[in-house]
């Protein structure tokens, strides 16, 4: 097998897994174990791919064997493979968590195959070098997330799905409109090719227009202001494992798309940076403020997602190398931590039978070790130094000062402060407080009733991701090296273009 074909593996593995699980329709145990197994394999393959790219530089593969820009090219630069690796890790964690927490009825209706397909979509979106193909990956992510969101068909899920679906469809339509216009102007869809052709387009106002449309399209996925409304109205409704993978990865995909498309197609557009700055400020403020006043654990986390997306957008708007390092670092940290937080919410829900801050409590007294475990993601999120959230913020704030982006930096600091308050409140309410009493729920299996194996499967992924968070925090130097390389790659558009179009390096 030729080396480039490694690139296909993170995709093919998940699709094959999904298909095989579809053949095993309804076989709950098979699906659980097979899913975990294939996710574990995917982690190994992604790690392999990461190492190959880390050593050998940008790797491209051409589906169908057609030279770019004629076929669909998959491009693995460091950013892509890092995200694929993280996605695989998250996938494994969520798979294990799902095996423990998703009831067999849902498993019988295709939960795991769709989870695999969602991960497939994410990997595909991270790897593709083709604009329209990106759209297609986006769609598969939408549909699978949509199905995961509604699976079980409870009232809140359905209501949430209506909003989720509509706003995401609108964003898809805007995205597609933008792709069409870009095609109408350049006649090509390959992003590397576009990087060469877009600057040559004479109607710059149309080019800027497409930038705005892309921004709106990706901005909705990323949940930036004022396109984020779907997120807080839906993320708290599906099963916790689903919230976990949504919260960790879906919005980050939007951020990835913004980084990718804007660094290649619209590098250094002052207008876009201006818009992004304003959006970032508003996003941070909106997310953080709402997080402070919410009373549902998962809603708080949902709004915090928005707030922290604002951090990343702020970094993108700054655009300096250091800011990008911060953004990338934040991206890595945030994916791990947010996933973990929603699993945490799942665990607390399992223990107490509720997600409302008013009724939650007592975990610190009753399950101190669990509380200790859960403290890791919570305080990583806050960015308590030297945990993982601290470093990227450090980079972002430094970058903000170096570029004299005072207001935006102020917003980042403010956002951090409000995050701190929100999480401290969560800690006090969920962990410290003595709950009124653990709610009584028929048909609900409380944590105490679980056998140890199932408890372990709940705790294992949380511990796993906490360990990764700790690694990101204490091994920040290593992550910094990766992020710096990514930042350098992103700034060097020509290098990317040459690698994809296989032009001789100048």
């Amino acid at each position, binding site marked *: 097998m030729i080396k480039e074909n490694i690139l296909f593996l993170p995709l093919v593995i998940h699709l094959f897994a999904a298909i095989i699980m579809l053949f095993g329709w309804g076989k709950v145990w098979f699906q659980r174990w097979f899913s975990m197994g294939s996710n574990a394999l995917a982690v190994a393959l992604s790690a392999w791919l990461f190492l190959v790219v880390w050593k050998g530089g940008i790797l491209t593969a051409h589906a169908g064997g057609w030279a770019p820009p004629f076929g669909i090219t998959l491009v693995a630069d460091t950013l892509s493979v890092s995200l694929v690796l993280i996605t695989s890790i998250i996938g494994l964690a969520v798979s294990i968590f799902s095996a423990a927490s998703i009831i067999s009825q849902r498993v019988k209706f295709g939960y795991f195959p769709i989870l695999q397909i969602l991960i497939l979509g994410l990997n595909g979106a991270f790897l593709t070098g083709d604009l329209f193909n990106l759209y297609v990956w986006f769609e598969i992510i939408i549909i699978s997330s949509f199905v995961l969101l509604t699976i079980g*068909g409870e009232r809140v899920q359905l209501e949430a799905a209506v909003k989720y679906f509509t706003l995401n469809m609108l964003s898809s339509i805007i995205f597609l409109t933008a792709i069409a216009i870009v095609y109408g102007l350049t006649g090509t869809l390959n992003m590397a090719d576009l990087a060469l052709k877009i600057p040559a387009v004479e109607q710059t106002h149309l080019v800027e227009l497409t930038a705005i449309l892309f921004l709106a399209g990706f901005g909705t996925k990323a949940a930036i202001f004022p396109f984020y409304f779907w997120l807080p109205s839906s993320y708290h409704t599906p099963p916790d494992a689903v919230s976990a993978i949504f919260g960790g990865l879906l919005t980050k995909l939007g951020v990835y798309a913004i980084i990718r498309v804007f660094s290649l197609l619209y590098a250094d557009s002052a207008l876009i940076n201006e818009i992004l700055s304003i959006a970032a400020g508003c996003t941070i403020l909106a997310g953080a403020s709402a997080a402070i006043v919410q009373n549902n654990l998962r809603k708080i986390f949902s709004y915090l997602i928005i707030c922290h997306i604002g951090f990343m957008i702020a970094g993108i708007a700054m655009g300096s190398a250091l800011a990008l390092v911060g953004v990338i670092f934040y991206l890595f940290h945030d994916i791990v931590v947010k996933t973990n937080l929603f699993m945490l919410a799942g665990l607390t829900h399992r223990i107490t039978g509720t997600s409302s801050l008013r009724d939650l409590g007592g975990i610190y007294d009753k399950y101190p070790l669990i509380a200790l475990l859960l403290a890791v993601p919570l305080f990583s999120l806050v960015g308590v130094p030297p945990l993982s959230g601290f470093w990227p913020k450090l980079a972002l704030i430094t970058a903000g000062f170096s570029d004299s982006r005072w207001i935006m930096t102020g917003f980042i600091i403010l956002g951090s*402060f409000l995050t701190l308050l929100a999480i401290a409140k969560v800690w006090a309410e969920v962990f410290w407080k003595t709950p009124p009493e653990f709610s009584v729920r028929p048909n609900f299996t409380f944590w105490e009733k679980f056998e140890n194996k199932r408890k372990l499967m709940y705790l294992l992924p949380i511990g796993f991701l906490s360990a990764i968070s700790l690694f990101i925090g204490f091994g920040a130097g290593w992550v910094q090296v990766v992020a710096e390389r990514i930042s350098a790659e992103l700034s060097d558009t020509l290098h990317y273009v040459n690698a994809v179009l296989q032009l001789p390096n100048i």
Partner: protein
Amino acid sequence: MAIAILAGFIFALLVPFTGKIIHDKLQFLPALLPLSLFIWFSTFLFIGLPPSISESTEWAFGASLSFVCDGLSLIFALLITGVGVLVFAYCATYMKKHPYLPRFYAYLSIFMASMLGLVLSGNAITLFIFWELTSISSFFLIGFNNREEPSRKSALVALAVTGFGGLALLAAVLIMGYLTGTYEISAMLQNPEVFTDSPYFVLILVLILLAAFTKSAQFPFHFWLPGAMKAPTPVSTYLHSATMVKAGIYLLFRFSPAFRSEALWGELLMVIGAITMLYGAFHSLLRSDLKGILAYTTISALGTLTFLIGIGTELAITAALIFVMVHALYKAALFLVAGIADHQTHTRDIQLLGGLRKVMPLVSIIAFVSALSGAGIPLTFGFIGKDLIYESTLHSNGSAVLLTFIALAANVLVGAAGFFAGIKPFAGKLPAALSTTVAPVAGLWLPPMVLAVLSLFFGMFPGFLFEPLIAPALNALGDVAYYPQLKLWHGFNSVFWLSMGTIAAATAIYLFTKPYMVLGHLPAKLNFMAPETIALRMGKLYTDTAVYWNKGFQSGYLRYYILISISTVVALAAAVHLPGFHWHFELDMIRNVTPYEWILITILISSVFITVLTDSRLTAVAAMGVIGFAICLIFVIYGAPDLAMTQFSIDTLTVILFVLVLYKLPRYLKLTPGASKVRDGILSILFGTFITGIVLDVLSAPKPNEVSQFYMDNAYLLAKGKNVVNVILVDFRGLDTMIEITVLAVAAIGVFGLLKLRTVKGES
């Protein structure tokens, strides 16, 4: 040195797993940790500070694990570990029965390690990291009695204030790092002109002061400290009196060499310090809760320290350094004594306490000594401190009289408060309620005893301190010119009379007034303008606004979400598009349109209107069918047979789905009021017009055909197909199709689940 810091963290990780042992057999084991550290740091006193105690490991983003132990650090390190030993030992008895003792030790040792890290850090970012860790461990310790609402609230308030300050410190550090290009503190401060001359100087200054003031409970950020007294008494002793609150003071010390030259620095510190010390002192007299009194006197003392650093002369700095130690010794002792009183009598109200000297004479002596030290009675360490304070105020350039007066006033009040806290519970008669009180075990009174003894010892032999401690610290701060004489007796100079006056006035207040009874109601009365109230009210205002804003934006009404999103897109896009858009109508544009095309377009447009305007859902669906049909014919006319087929099949299937679903749904209702119809209509028309404009604009531009030409040329030769569209679908862009069918598969599974899956209610 890194190991010294790490030891605390490692201990914290291990201690929760020790189980019962820590409660009985090995109860004094934890104290060995600070003890060994204290001994280690003490060796520096004798072998001197080797110049090369600086270790550096790069971490990330300019943070490095570099630790420097200079004189200033050493004073604090000794305080931290020294008081640490006593507090740990005290806890072994005081908290013996507490079920959470292991985690208590864990927090405490994390705190100690962080605090050590803070004072030893040679790198500004590392300093910040430890700074934050002290705040966090303080949060956990204040909220240690986690089941009590006030504890949790106080913990939150403390974290909010110190966290806020922490971020200010971060910002300050980062700006300074950016300006100087390094985060190594020594290098950073080497050329202070770099930032004192920069336009950001005031900003940096303000940020640093914010950090220091919040941490060290300066007015108006002081209010978290009395709340922090919800923590167990050893914690109050250690964190909120002796060490953590001095982190801000440490910071001021650390940065003062760089900023001292700027007048603003000194002025701000003096003003805030003065206000804080008076405010704290006055308030301390109004409290009857032992810990409350001690908290406010601590605030006052912290104000004094700030005030002294603000004066900034070598003498003042020396005074501040000494006073750090003085305060640590007597205040820690008083706190521990208060703890004993609480522990033995279960009350801390001085109005209820009295006559305890009969039950615990030893403790009463300790308290007495400490209170005297606090008031600055000669022969106690406090006298040395007071002495130096008056000397610095008197020798300050500028308004020496005013400063001295302020210091005097504060000292009088604090001294009296010290008496109320240290003497009142032991004096007088033993109230009946306390008749069953028994003497504390040695584990409780030994630690304060050590402190009291030290207060006396240093009071009598202050000279011991200078060579090994004060001189290196002054050295570290760049002050070498003037060594004040540390001695007990200076003669009957003005300083002496001031000290005497202080003592006399304080004694008078203690003997002849009961301000906590007379004026005890004042704090409650003035609560509305207390900084805490204002801060909380601002917080409330903010959360109310947030709720309002959140309800406005996240209203739950989907159409507003859409309205906001799309309006934004249209507005932004129009803003960039319109300036470059020029278009004019030519008849040629429609001259070649054939009649059947006209008819098609007519049908298409009318059907769109029918879909929008009809009252019948089924008509709308049928009209959608017509739209699909017309579009399909357009595709046929313009050479897209595959599209026509697919579009039409899909349209029909969609119609069928609709039809199968529709009869379960209610009929259309007239729901929307006219005004919003107009609004939506206008937005929609704008949106549509805008799209039309874009399309025409793009169509007027040339389009490169390289890619399509490649497909046309190679579809057969390379991909063996003649229907180029199909070849693109299954070959050139086959990946798209692979995903597309996966999308379909997922949709089908989803539909199947929606229709068939019913979860048990309640389970999720």
